[in-house]
C-alpha cells in the first residue's frame, strides 16, 4: 500500500488550553475555558478517511482528537462553556468530578459547567451521550489536576495530593518511589519534576490517550448533518464494536514513531510520568520494553459514588504490562533506569559510546492484546505501537546541549 500523506491532527490535539494558572500555588485560580463540538476528517495510517467528532480549543478553533489538554490545580474554580455546532444533541461530562456534567446541549446551542478542581489526578472529559459512542468517535480529552502541594514528607515532588489521601500506606508507597528517585543506587540522576504550568507535556511527563476506530461507526457521522441512526449497530456497541485501527493520541504505527507528545527521549535519571487514558471500547494490555513501570494510580470503575475517582495504589507493582479497560486512567512512572539485563561488563562502553552498539537505545511500547497492533485487518505493526528512546547516561542532556 502506498504511503499516504500524514495529517498531524493528533499532535496538534495536545495543545494546551489551561491558560491563566495562578502564580501562587496557595491561591485558587479561576479558569474560564471554551470548547466547540464539530466534525472533522481524519486520515488513518493506511490512507482510509473517516469522519470523527472533535472538540475545538475554543468556539472556532482547530478540531483535535483527543481534545486539548487542560491543566488546573486542585481547588481552582473551573468554568467550561461548550458550543455545539453539530446537528444532534451532545452532553459534556468529566467522570469523577462532582458537578462536572452539563445538561444536553441542543444543536447550535451552548452549555456551561462549573466545578472546583478536585483531588489531583488524570481525568478524562468526554461526551456522555449515546453511552460511550460519542466518546470513541472523538469527543474526549484529558484534564490534569495538579496538587496544590504534592510533596512527600522528605520534600520530593509528586503529581498527587498526598495531604488528602486517606490511606497512609498509599502515601508511604508513593513517597518511597519519589524519594528514591535521584537518591539511590538504582535510580541515580534527577527527581521527578512536574510539568511547567501551561504546557501540555514535558520532558518528564506524557499523556497517552488510547482509542480505537471502527469505520462503520464513523460512517454514521455525516459532515454538517445530524448523526445517522443505526439501531442495530449502536444499541449495544460492546457487541458490535469491531475496531480496525488502534491509536494513541489519534495516531498509529509509523505515525507514532514521531511526535514529542508521545515519544519519550530521555537520559538515565530523568523519570517520566505517563498518564494513560483509554477512551475506546476495547481493553488494552500495554507492554513496554526496556524498563518496568510503577503502576501508581488508577481509576475506580465500580458503579457508585466512587466511580471515576482516581485511586492511589497502596501496593505499587512494577509492571511490564498494564491493563487498560475502557474508561480507565492510570498514572505510570517510567523510571528511565539502565535496562537491567544489559550485561554489566558492557554498560560502561555503551554509555561512553565506545561499544559496538550505540545509543540511543530504542525500546518499543505496544499493546500485547496483539489484535491492536494491526491496521485495517493486517499491516503489523501499524497499530498501537510506539517507542521510547534511552538517549544516554546520567546528566547526558546537559552534556549533549553543550
Amino acid at each position, binding site marked *: 500500500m502506498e*504511503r499516504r500523506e500524514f495529517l498531524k491532527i493528533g499532535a496538534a490535539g495536545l495543545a494546551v488550553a489551561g491558560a491563566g494558572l495562578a502564580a501562587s500555588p496557595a491561591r485558587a485560580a479561576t479558569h474560564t475555558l471554551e470548547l466547540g463540538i464539530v466534525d472533522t476528517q481524519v486520515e488513518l495510517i493506511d490512507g482510509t478517511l473517516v469522519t470523527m467528532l472533535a472538540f475545538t480549543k475554543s468556539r472556532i478553533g482547530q478540531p483535535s482528537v483527543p481534545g486539548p489538554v487542560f491543566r488546573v490545580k486542585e481547588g481552582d474554580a473551573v468554568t467550561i462553556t461548550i458550543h455545539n455546532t453539530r446537528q444532534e444533541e451532545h452532553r459534556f461530562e468529566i467522570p469523577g468530578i462532582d458537578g462536572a456534567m452539563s445538561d444536553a446541549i441542543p444543536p447550535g446551542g451552548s452549555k456551561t459547567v462549573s466545578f472546583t478542581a478536585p483531588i489531583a489526578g488524570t481525568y478524562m472529559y468526554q461526551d456522555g451521550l449515546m453511552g460511550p459512542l460519542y466518546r470513541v468517535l472523538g469527543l474526549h480529552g484529558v484534564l490534569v489536576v495538579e496538587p496544590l502541594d504534592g510533596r512527600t514528607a522528605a520534600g520530593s515532588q509528586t503529581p498527587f495530593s498526598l495531604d488528602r489521601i486517606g490511606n497512609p500506606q498509599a502515601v*508511604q*508507597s*508513593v513517597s*518511597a*518511589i519519589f524519594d*528514591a528517585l535521584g537518591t539511590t543506587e538504582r535510580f541515580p540522576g534527577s527527581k521527578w519534576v512536574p510539568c511547567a504550568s501551561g504546557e501540555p507535556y514535558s520532558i518528564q511527563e506524557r499523556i497517552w490517550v488510547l482509542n480505537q476506530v471502527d469505520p462503520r461507526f464513523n460512517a454514521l457521522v455525516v459532515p454538517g448533518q445530524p448523526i445517522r441512526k443505526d439501531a442495530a449497530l449502536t444499541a449495544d456497541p460492546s*457487541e458490535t*464494536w*469491531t*475496531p480496525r485501527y488502534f491509536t494513541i493520541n489519534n495516531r498509529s*504505527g*509509523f505515525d507514532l514513531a514521531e511526535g514529542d507528545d508521545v515519544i519519550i527521549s530521555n537520559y538515565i535519571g530523568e523519570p517520566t510520568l505517563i498518564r494513560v487514558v483509554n477512551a475506546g471500547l*476495547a*481493553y488494552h*494490555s500495554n*507492554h513496554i*520494553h*526496556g524498563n*518496568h513501570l*510503577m503502576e501508581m494510580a488508577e481509576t475506580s470503575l465500580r458503579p457508585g459514588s466512587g466511580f471515576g475517582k482516581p485511586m492511589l495504589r497502596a*501496593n*505499587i*507493582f*512494577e*509492571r*511490564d*504490562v*498494564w*491493563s487498560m479497560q475502557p474508561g480507565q486512567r492510570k498514572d505510570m512512572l517510567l523510571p528511565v533506569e539502565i*535496562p*537491567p*539485563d*544489559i*550485561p*554489566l*561488563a*558492557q554498560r560502561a*562502553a555503551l554509555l561512553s559510546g565506545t561499544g*559496538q*552498539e*550505540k545509543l540511543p*537505545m*530504542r*525500546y*518499543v511500547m*505496544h499493546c*500485547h*492484546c*496483539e*489484535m*491492536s497492533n*494491526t491496521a*485495517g*485487518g*493486517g*499491516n*503489523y*505493526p*501499524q497499530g498501537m505501537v510506539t517507542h521510547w528512546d534511552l538517549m544516554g547516561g546520567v546528566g547526558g542532556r546537559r552534556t549533549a546541549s553543550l
Partner: protein
Amino acid sequence: MADIESPSPAAAPAATATAAAAVTGAAAAATFAPSALAQTASTLGPKSTGMPGPGPFSGGLPDFKNLATDGVESYETFGCKVYKDSPPTPDWQRASVWFDRRIASHEIKMPDGKILDFWVFEDEAVGSKSRNVPSPLIRVQQGDLVHVRLKAAKGPHTIHHHGIEPTTFNDGVGHVSMEVGTEYIYQWEANTPGTWIYHCHVNTPLHFEMGLYGAVVVDPKPDPGTRRVRAFDGGPLYDVEQFWVFDDIDPRWHLLEHGAGLCGEDVGLNIFEPQYFMVTGGVSRRGTSVGKARITARANQKILVRMINAAYSQVRVRLEGLEYDVISVDGHALGKSAWNRYQRVAPGEELVLATANRYDILIDLASPVNQAAILKKKSFRTEFEFVDWITWKRQNLGDPVAEGLAFSSIDVV
C-alpha cells in the same frame, strides 16, 4: 557464522534430562577451538535447562547502516519491508549458558478432533521431541550471561525475551533492529530472578498466536549448604512448582501464512474468536479437568505457581478454598522495595491476568486458613476463565466442546 566451541559432555552437570540431551546432541556436531578448551566450564544453576557456555561464537560488528538501527526508516521498513539480516552479535561477551532455538512446525489435536498447525521454537539439540506449546523452557540462574541462538525457518523471525531488558539489538523487535533471516545469537544477562516469556516479534499477532512462545525463568543462586533454590533472591523456599500458561486459539488464524497481512492485505488479524483453550499445553475440553495444570502436594508444603498469560483473552484465575500470596509481578519480586509487598488473595477471590502478564504465587498449605480447609477436603478446584477483550463475556460461551472456562485441581495427598 562459525561454531568455534561447544561444551564437552563431561563438563556438563546433567541437571535435567533436557540439558543432558542437549549437550550430547550439540557436542556431536561441534568442532572445537583450542582457545575455548582453555576456558573453565561454567557452573549452571541446579535447575538450568541450558548448555554450559561459552557456546558458539558469533561476535562482531553488524552493518548497522543496513539495519533499522541506522538505516532509512520509512513506512515500508516499519512493517512490510523490514530490515532482515543474520548479523554477528555486537559487544560479544562470554556466555555462561546458551540455548539453541529453531523454528519448527507442530500439530496439536483439538478436543473436537480437528488438527491445527502450530509453529514452535524447537530445542535443536533435543530435536522434534522438544516441539511443544509452550516452547521449551529457558531456565537460567541469576548472573548468567545468556546466549540464545535463533535459527529461523519459513521466513524471518526474532526472539523477544519479554520483560527481560537488554540492549535494543538483543531485544528482538524487527522494526527497531532487524528480523533474523537465518540466525542470530541474542545476548543478555539474567540479573532479575523471576518469570518471563520469550516469543517471536515478527507479525506478532499471528506468530505469538501460532505458538512461538515459551517461558523464561531466572532462578536465584541456590542457598549455600542446602543448595535449595528460592522463588527469588531473598524470597521463599518452595516444595512444589507448577506453571500455568494460558493460551486461546482461533482456528481461522492457524490457516494463515507467515507474512499474512504485512503488506496491506486485510486478513482479519483485528478479529479474534478463540474456540479452544489451553493451560500449560493441555487442551481444555468442556467438563474435563486439564491434567497438565494439576498440582499434587502434601498438606504442609509450599507450592509455587508461575502464571503466564499467553492468551489474547483476559484470564480470571480462581482457587477454591485456598488462600495464597502474589509474590512477584511481571518478573519483579514484591517486598524488595518500600513501595510494594506480597499481596494476599483470599480463597475464591479472583486474580485477573492481562495479556502477557505474569504472576508468581505461593500457596502455603501450612497456613492456618489452608490447614482448616484441608481438614474438610483434599481436592480443590482451580478455575481459569478466558474473557473477551471487548464484550467482557466468557469466550465461546455455551460451546459443547470447549468454552472459555478451563479447570483443574490442587490435590492434597
